[in-house]
Structure formats: structure tokens, C-alpha cells
């Protein structure tokens, strides 16, 4: 007797190959209920498609991320991904005029130059990293170009986004530096909007400033500054991280299919476009989309009650054999059929034309310079959250792996903190904690006090302080917990290992899952 299928979206060991689990879900439990985290999930193509189109019973009013839907999070109106009609429709139709395939075609040559700028310096190198050298650079520069952000401001904004998005477990973060960067970037961003108001151009920002907006509450007006900032944040946030992940999957998937890679390189005009579609289907950077269920609905004779959180498993739908023959096979020659990677229905990815074009340009320019590469898996880092799945780092050898590579391959991480060699620092005192949460790093400050042999302490984050509980330390392993009230009441359990002045480990935040954290002694 086989055990009933269970799916825990937060299990880290599932990140590498979640597809056999998805297949079992489609076959054994096409409507799945997860009791531990209290959510429903649909995994078959037809159901995911139906769910995404069902605007009468499915709401995006609490966002499209499971944790946000569970927490019933609200966002300002201009964050239109987080709204239902008519508010969503008002902003969406405004943006639909601005983010168009025609505009993307207009900047293709510029984006090709950006891509070349990332790749040309790598010519002759033995190794490079798909993320550091291309994924983290090209999409950000492309968005900046579309928005018209001048080159000198791009660095600050990119570094801020990078700092917010690219912090990783095991890599020390200078919290104060990170905050400075963010403040600086946001400051220069405000400055930039003001400047662009006085110096109109043909970019997206100028259009946002000049566009007539049909307010869902009546009347036509210009967008307010705060609305523009919100819209730009949505556009930049959505366009950066996902395209970065797409580039990582390109590196991994093509390396594992060298025959198809060769065919693409030999005839890019014919094969790059279908290869991008197949890549989008095969490894969607955003594997899940969540909805809040507004009326009781029924699938397979089972009810999904009003008020439930429902996960639409795009990554599973894309492999559904009922829709794609040999769904688990990467095949650039397959008949192009719509996949669910950009979603479906009124919230379908508005940046899809940009993503496809960036993907195509990146693949063309890569293969021109590097027809072959091999992934250094020992030094690659994969991460998976409920919003994105992809490579934080994907180092490759140009050509193939050299024979002596295992000893010489440098680990592409930041240098160890200086104190590491001299053993752990005293625990008492102030620690700067950063949890890499689903929406970016969450900073907190932990203050520990020594009382004889035991420790007490308090943790402050998001403006609230609470006493820590369950503190344990055995000379290496350290753990504690605290109760947070924002964005909701939760017990967060920290468990990590101390090395020098740094603790790295996982923070488990109730049903929201586990996230990497680091704590650095101040």
C-alpha cells in the first residue's frame, strides 16, 4: 500500500526536483488539501487554467502569494497585481498602453548592447556565473532603460534591489550598509521622478507622469507621485527577479541538453524563440500563483470553501501529460502550445513581451560567445520560496570541466568574516539579524544578556520588541524563538550554527515556512 501523497511547499529537499511530487498530485490528488498550512492546491493544466480565469470566485485582493493570501494582506490601489476589478482594471488598462510589444521592439537593440556589456568582459575567462555576470545585471539594466533612469542612478537602484533580493544564507551582510544603500537609492529615485517631470523624454516614466488615468472612483486625472512609485516598484520587482531566474534556468537546462544547445547555436533564427517558450514551460521562475476563494467552489466532488487560500500550481500544469506529450522532457521541437508560466486571465503577466524578448536576446548573445559550458554544481546555489524557484548562483566552466577542477574551483562567496578563524565571539551583546523572507530581507536586532551560565534576550523587528524564549546553545548550535505580531501573530523559531561572528541557519515562521537567516555580531 502506498502512502497518501503529501506536498509541503516549504520542504527544501523538494527544491531540486519537485516534479515527481507534482506528477503524483495530478494523478492521485488533483485537488489537494494541506492540513498543516491550511491551503488547497490544483495541479492539472485544465484546473489551473480554469482557476486563473475564474474571476467570479477567485480574488487577487490579498495578492497572489500564499503567505499574503493567508495573512489577508492589503496593498495600496496602485499595486494592481494585488487588486480585483474595477480597481485592477483601471491601472491595468493604463499600464497596457505603456508596456507594449511595440515599445519592447523599440528598445531591443539597446537591450542587446546591455547584454553584450555583461558578456564581452567574460570572453577568454575559464568560468563565469550565469546569475552574477548576467542574470543580476541585464534585467535590471533593461528595466532602468525602459524607465529612463540615467546610468549614474542605476547603480544605486540596482545595488539596493540586489541587496534586498540577493542576500543569502551563509553570506555575511552588512546591515547598516544595506540600509544606507536603500535609503540612498529611494532618495535618488524620488529625485529622478522630479527631474523627469521637468525633462520629459520618450520613456515609460514620462508616460506615467503624463498619462490620463481613469480613476475607478470617477473622473480622469494624472497619477499621484505615490502611485507612480508603487507602479514602478511592482514593474521593477516583477521584471527583475523572474527574468534573472529565467537566465539561470537557461544556463542549467541548456547545459543538460547539449545536443539541443548545439542545434540552437547552429540555427538561432529558427530555434531560439521556440527554445525560450519551452524553457518557460519547463522551468517556470514563478511556480505558483495563489488566490483567495470568494465563493464555495467544487472540484472533483470536493468543496473548496469560501475564504480558503488556493494555490494554482503553474509548474505542475506545465508538465501535465494531458496537455503536453512527454511533459517531463525538454524538447525545443515540440509543438508550441500555451503554457501557464505568465499566468492566465486578467492578471496575466503584463511584462511577458519584455521577458520573452530579454530571454531571446540573452540566449542569442550567449550562444554567439559561449556555445558550450558545464555547470559547477558543487558551487551552485538553488533556492525555492513560494514565489520564485531558481538559482542564486550558477557558476559554469566555459567549454567543459577541467580535469583538476574539483580542487581549484573557487567558491563564489563573499570572504569569511575576519573573526571566523578565532572561534565564536561572546554571545552577549547586539546581533543584527536578517531573515530572507518571501518579500525580501526582514531585518531585526537581537540583544542577548548573560546571567551566570544562561542567556536571556529580546528581539526587535518591525517596530516591536519581544522577549526571546526557548534559548539553547551547545557551543556550536544555537536556537531561540520569538513571538511577532506583524504582519500577523506568529512564533518564529531560529535555529543556526555559529561561526566566528556570524550565525547562519533557518527561521521557521509557522505556516509561512522556513527562510534562511544570518545574524552578525554588531
Amino acid at each position: 500500500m502506498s502512502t497518501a501523497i503529501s506536498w509541503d511547499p516549504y520542504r527544501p529537499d523538494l527544491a531540486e526536483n519537485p516534479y515527481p511530487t507534482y506528477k503524483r498530485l495530478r494523478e492521485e490528488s488533483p485537488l489537494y488539501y494541506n492540513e498543516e498550512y491550511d491551503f488547497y492546491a490544483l495541479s492539472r493544466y485544465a484546473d489551473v487554467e480554469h482557476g486563473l480565469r475564474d474571476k467570479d470566485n477567485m480574488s487577487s485582493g490579498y495578492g497572489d502569494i500564499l503567505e499574503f493570501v493567508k495573512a489577508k494582506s492589503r496593498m495600496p490601489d496602485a499595486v494592481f497585481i494585488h487588486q480585483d476589478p474595477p480597481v485592477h482594471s483601471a491601472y491595468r488598462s493604463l499600464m497596457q498602453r505603456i508596456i507594449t510589444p511595440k515599445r519592447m521592439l523599440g528598445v531591443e537593440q539597446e537591450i542587446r548592447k546591455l547584454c553584450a556589456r555583461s558578456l564581452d568582459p567574460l570572453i577568454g575567462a575559464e568560468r563565469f556565473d550565469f546569475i552574477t555576470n548576467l542574470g543580476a545585471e541585464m534585467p535590471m539594466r533593461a528595466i532602468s532603460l525602459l524607465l529612463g533612469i540615467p546610468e549614474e542612478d542605476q547603480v544605486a537602484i540596482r545595488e539596493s534591489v540586489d541587496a534586498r533580493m540577493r542576500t543569502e544564507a551563509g553570506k555575511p551582510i552588512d546591515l547598516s550598509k544595506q540600509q544606507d544603500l536603500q535609503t540612498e537609492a529611494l532618495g535618488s529615485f524620488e529625485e529622478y521622478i522630479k527631474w523627469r517631470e521637468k525633462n520629459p523624454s520618450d520613456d515609460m516614466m514620462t508616460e506615467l507622469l503624463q498619462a490620463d488615468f481613469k480613476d475607478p472612483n470617477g473622473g480622469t486625472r494624472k497619477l499621484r507621485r505615490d502611485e507612480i512609485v508603487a507602479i514602478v516598484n511592482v514593474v521593477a520587482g516583477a521584471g527583475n527577479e523572474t527574468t534573472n531566474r529565467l537566465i539561470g534556468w537557461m544556463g542549467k537546462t541548456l547545459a543538460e541538453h547539449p545536443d539541443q544547445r548545439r542545434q540552437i547555436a547552429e540555427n538561432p533564427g529558427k530555434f531560439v524563440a521556440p527554445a525560450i517558450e519551452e524553457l518557460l514551460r519547463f522551468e517556470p521562475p514563478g511556480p505558483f500563483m495563489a488566490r483567495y476563494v470568494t465563493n464555495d467552489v467544487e472540484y472533483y466532488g470536493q468543496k473548496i470553501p469560501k475564504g480558503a487560500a488556493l494555490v494554482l500550481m503553474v509548474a505542475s500544469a506545465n508538465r501535465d501529460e494531458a496537455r503536453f506529450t512527454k511533459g517531463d522532457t525538454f524538447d525545443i521541437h515540440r509543438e508550441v502550445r500555451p503554457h501557464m508560466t505568465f499566468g492566465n486571465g486578467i492578471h496575466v503577466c503584463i511584462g511577458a513581451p519584455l521577458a520573452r524578448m530579454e530571454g531571446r536576446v540573452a540566449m542569442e548573445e550567449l550562444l554567439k560567445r559561449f556555445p558550450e559550458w558545464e555547470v559547477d554544481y558543487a558551487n551552485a546555489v538553488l533556492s525555492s520560496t513560494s514565489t520564485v524557484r531558481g538559482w542564486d548562483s550558477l557558476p559554469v566552466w566555459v567549454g567543459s570541466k577541467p580535469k583538476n577542477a574539483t580542487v581549484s574551483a573557487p567558491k563564489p562567496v563573499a570572504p569569511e568574516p575576519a573573526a571566523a578563524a578565532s572561534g565564536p565571539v561572546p554571545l552577549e551583546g547586539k546581533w543584527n539579524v536578517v531573515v530572507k523572507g518571501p518579500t525580501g530581507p526582514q531585518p531585526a536586532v537581537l540583544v542577548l544578556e548573560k546571567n551566570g551560565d544562561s542567556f536571556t534576550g529580546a528581539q526587535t523587528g518591525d517596530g516591536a520588541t519581544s522577549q526571546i524564549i526557548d534559548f539553547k546553545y551547545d557551543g556550536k548550535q544555537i536556537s531561540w524563538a520569538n513571538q511577532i505580531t506583524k504582519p500577523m501573530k506568529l512564533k518564529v523559531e531560529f535555529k543556526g550554527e555559529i561561526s566566528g561572528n556570524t550565525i547562519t541557519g533557518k527561521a521557521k515562521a509557522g505556516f509561512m515556512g522556513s527562510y534562511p537567516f544570518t545574524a552578525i555580531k554588531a
Partner: protein
Amino acid sequence: MPKIVYIEHDGKEHVVDATVGVSVMQTALDHFVPGILGDCGGACSCGTCHCYVDAAWEQRLPPIAENEEIMLEGTLHTEANSRLSCQIRVTPEIDGLVVRLPRSQVL
């Protein structure tokens, strides 16, 4: 059942039995006609079901609404007879409709 004729950019023809009430876009997807993506599933939000309507049919279809106009303005390879096929519903009156498909639905 009304018939819809899809002609791919390379001239390949697909004659399909359509169901009344379904869109011309969804009819293509249901019959696996290549050359139409329909990413948004008929919400007039993606512009990937672009087609050219044969001259004989232009006047016999419902007029282009504002949201379709907005999408078509930003779409590539448009002509005077361009339409989004998700905005055309199959009725008995459009039996025999001929739509030609663009070179590509994406950039």
C-alpha cells in the same frame, strides 16, 4: 456547427468545427491550431491572439471595443484588418469566417 478557417503565416490552412458562444481564439486552442497563443485566456490583456480578418468579413463582425483598440495599438505587425480573436465570439452568422495569422504573436 459553424466552420472557422485559420490560415497560418506560411499558408497552412486549418478548417475547424466551432462551438457557438466560444471565442475564435479559444476555438483555435481547443483544436490545437498553431500560431495563436492566447496567454490571457480571453481577457483582452495580452495581445497574443492577433489575427487578420478577411476583407469579406470585416463589416460582419462586432465592432472593435476600446480595450481591444488599446491592445491593438501596442501589438506588432498590425494591419487595418487586425483583430484580437478572443474578442470575436462564434455565432451561426460567422460560419466560414477566414482569419489569417501573423508571422509571430511574440517579439
